[in-house]
């Protein structure tokens, strides 16, 4: 199943229309799209306007591949599940968003090897042609980096404690949206002592 998503904030006709057209041309029937307020109604893929967060997470988990705008929420969750991600950044000049900040997000994440980016329609169709060879990114934990957690922990506790969080590897469980896999602070402090 390929999950196509544009987020909840703004419509994204260019993405939905192009992927829908491609699906029709190839006769694929394994696409599902979350299209928000997009005006284009897909004829070649199942779709819904919005999904509740648990359903959304489940869709990302169940997908073999995700085609999305450069929305941070979708990308972070898809990375948790290690799914290949094809990103189409929204363009400010087409009023797909207020400015071109999605290009910055897409560039940085593609440079980090986290996502594949289709910068224009030609690249989108090219990527769609070779979907099966899109690389799956490394799975990430369901929480922030230990460095950020430690900085926040110090802020929250108002004390310069020893680093409470150490890197661990773990896989995310879609059944538990809160799936917290890192070490629990008090335990680590005991271990350190």
């Amino acid at each position: 199943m390929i999950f196509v998503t544009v987020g909840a904030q703004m419509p994204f006709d260019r993405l939905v229309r192009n992927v829908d057209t491609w699906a029709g041309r190839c006769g694929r029937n394994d696409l599902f799209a979350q299209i928000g307020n997009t005006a284009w109604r897909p004829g070649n893929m199942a779709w819904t306007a919005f999904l509740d967060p648990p359903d959304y997470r489940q869709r990302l988990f169940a997908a073999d591949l995700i085609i999305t705008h450069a929305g941070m929420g979708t990308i972070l969750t898809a990375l948790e599940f290690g799914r290949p991600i094809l990103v189409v950044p929204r363009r400010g000049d087409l009023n797909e968003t207020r400015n071109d900040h999605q290009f910055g997000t897409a560039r940085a994440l593609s440079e980090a090897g986290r996502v594949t980016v289709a910068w224009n329609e030609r690249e989108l169709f090219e990527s769609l042609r070779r979907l099966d060879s899109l690389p799956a990114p490394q799975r990430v934990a369901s929480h922030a980096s230990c460095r950020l957690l430690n900085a926040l922990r110090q802020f929250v506790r108002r004390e310069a404690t020893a680093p409470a969080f150490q890197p661990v590897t773990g896989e995310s469980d879609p059944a538990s949206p809160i799936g917290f896999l890192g070490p629990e602070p008090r335990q680590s402090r005991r271990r350190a002592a």
Partner: protein
Amino acid sequence: MLMIAEATERADTTTRKTRILAVASGGGHWVQLLRLRPAFVGEHVVYVTVNRAYRAEIGAAPFHVVNDATRWNKWGLIKLAARMAWIMLRERPDAVVTTGAAPGYFAILLGKLFGARTAWIDSMANVDCLSLSGQKVGRWTDLWLTQWPSLARKDGPRFEGSVL
């Protein structure tokens, strides 16, 4: 979730819990806030966001919904500020932590007014420049972070890792 809940109960008996107001608007802001939760283990956390459906993701924690607003919607901003002020009065947080955007902006300003410590974590989506709300509210924070080293400055924001 279970691990967090259990840890919360255990911590209860030993130290006074910090009252944290964790604030984010929708989509990526909310997902990034949730990724910070291990730092809140053992504290009293109250969530504020813009979508009632997000409650399903935070278990039994106290939860408030505010309207989202942009800087082009003056009435929306006034309503948001009023609602956030009411939440501040009711929850009296020791600390405000936010990943943006508009609700976080007001949470920082009002939190400061009510004597809370404040933390702004600029969204990871802001790669080339800081969010406008982050730029405006940064100097009112006790902890001002960007998630990209290239955006860190000597007088803030700092870089201390990212949600990834």
